[in-house]
């Protein structure tokens, strides 16, 4: 088999993950912060602009290579991977797709260089899955728009410089770019979380925040149908790969341990019930990868099927992530719950992926709707049937 060429940025990301992230991920988790220097290094290496167009200073990685980059960083530290999801995918890619010429010219180079960190602010204390019902309100006023409301669970919201905020007015949703420092915008870090502890989650208050007309992304009323849905599509692709990253990291820990640890006079890996866990993990990682690669190829070909298939991939890999990291804890026994090994942290992180970017239940609704169309057997067309009858 010929080894496939690895994109240089992916190779760099793997080295960065091994040298910088993996050794420190446990500390970032316990200290509840990915340090700014680490994000600055990510920016320096071009990771934050990986998927953004080269004409705006990005590296223009294709979707498949970007998936590999996500896996590399995600295996090193899930909270660090989260900056790729929100900054590069949810905000950067969405601006590249739907921003106007001036928004792209102004913001994309700043995002690509990591000079501004961006986050995506949709969810609110009272509105989660039912995302089209956000209560944060906008009002057209002289000079722009006035925003009022509260957002919650916003990844990297505590330190971001730029907020892509979804707000509604008379049942119509619109999207706005709000810069930190705008009067009336305040952020409060969220603590005491089971996972994503290092990812600077925040609650965001918008109190009479005045933004200029130029802050509107897309047209008025296009906030949900186009902007949020586009962003969530890119975000879901990122999260699908994030599931693979956790599964793969857990599998590597399982393998390392099963090859060393002995019980009943033989290596764990020689016990058949342990082999079953290893088998499920190997198969799961490969299934997850195959689904994500399929979506990546569809995105690179601009194929419509990507939009439905990304839901399938996200649904499958987030659940596999929970299963495989859980088995990893099991395989390591008491060491599995110790902070001296990463598997307990991977297990905590995996559960998040079933909640965000369309929970497992929301995916089940979307995928079953897709399934009853895709796998419907249509009656033969009349002419064909007639010809067949002769």
């Amino acid at each position, binding site marked *: 088999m010929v080894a496939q060429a690895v994109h240089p940025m992916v190779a760099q990301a793997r080295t960065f993950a091994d040298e910088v992230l993996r050794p420190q991920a446990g500390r970032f988790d316990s200290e509840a912060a990915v340090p700014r220097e680490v994000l600055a290094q990510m920016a320096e290496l071009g990771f934050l602009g990986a998927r953004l167009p080269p004409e705006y200073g990005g590296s223009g990685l294709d979707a498949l290579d970007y998936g590999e980059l996500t896996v590399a960083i995600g295996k090193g530290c899930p909270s660090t991977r989260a900056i790729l999801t929100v900054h590069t995918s949810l905000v950067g890619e969405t601006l590249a797709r739907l921003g106007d010429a001036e928004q792209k010219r102004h913001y994309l180079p700043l995002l690509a260089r990591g000079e501004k960190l961006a986050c995506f602010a949709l969810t609110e204390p009272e509105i989660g899955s039912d995302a089209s019902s956000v209560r944060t309100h906008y009002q057209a006023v002289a000079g722009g728009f006035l925003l009022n409301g509260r957002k919650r669970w916003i990844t990297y919201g505590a330190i971001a410089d730029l907020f892509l905020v979804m707000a509604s007015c008379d049942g119509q949703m619109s999207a706005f770019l709000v810069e930190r420092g705008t009067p009336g915008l305040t952020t409060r870090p969220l603590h005491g979380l089971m996972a994503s502890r290092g990812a600077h989650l925040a609650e965001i208050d918008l109190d009479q925040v005045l933004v200029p007309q130029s802050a509107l992304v897309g047209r008025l*009323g*296009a906030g949900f149908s186009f902007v949020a849905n586009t962003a969530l599509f890119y975000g879901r692709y990122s999260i699908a790969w994030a599931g693979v990253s956790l599964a793969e990291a857990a599998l590597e820990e399982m393998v390392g341990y099963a090859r060393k640890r002995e019980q009943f006079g033989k290596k764990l890996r020689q016990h058949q019930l342990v082999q079953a866990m290893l088998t499920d993990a190997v198969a799961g990682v490969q299934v997850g990868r195959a689904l994500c690669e399929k979506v990546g190829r569809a995105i690179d070909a601009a194929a419509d099927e990507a939009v439905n298939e990304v839901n399938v991939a996200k649904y499958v890999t987030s659940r596999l992530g929970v299963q495989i990291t859980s088995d990893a804890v099991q395989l390591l026994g008491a060491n599995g719950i110790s902070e001296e090994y990463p598997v307990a942290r991977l297990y905590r992180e995996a559960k998040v992926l079933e909640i965000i970017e369309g929970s497992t239940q929301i995916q089940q609704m979307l995928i079953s709707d897709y399934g009853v169309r895709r796998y419907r057997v249509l009656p033969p067309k009349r002419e064909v049937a007639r010809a067949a009858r002769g």
Partner: protein
Amino acid sequence: MDNQFNALCQQIREFVEANMNVDDEVALKDDDNIFRLGYVSSLFAMRLLNFIESISGITVADEDIVLPNFSSIDAMSALIQKYRSAA
């Protein structure tokens, strides 16, 4: 109306029909508002935008990326026509 334009409209119609969440075969009319009638959800709007751009080669400008331009076969035909006559 030239053949190429008619073929594009037919492709859009087939794309919409293949994605409608309806149990019984409904006959889609050219002026049916596919969102209001519940044939598709607003999630489908973005796919329509991508689909129209990919089959027609046009790039829909920011000011035209609004739901009413994608809400019926007629509206989408008019959108394409607008870009073709501008070209």
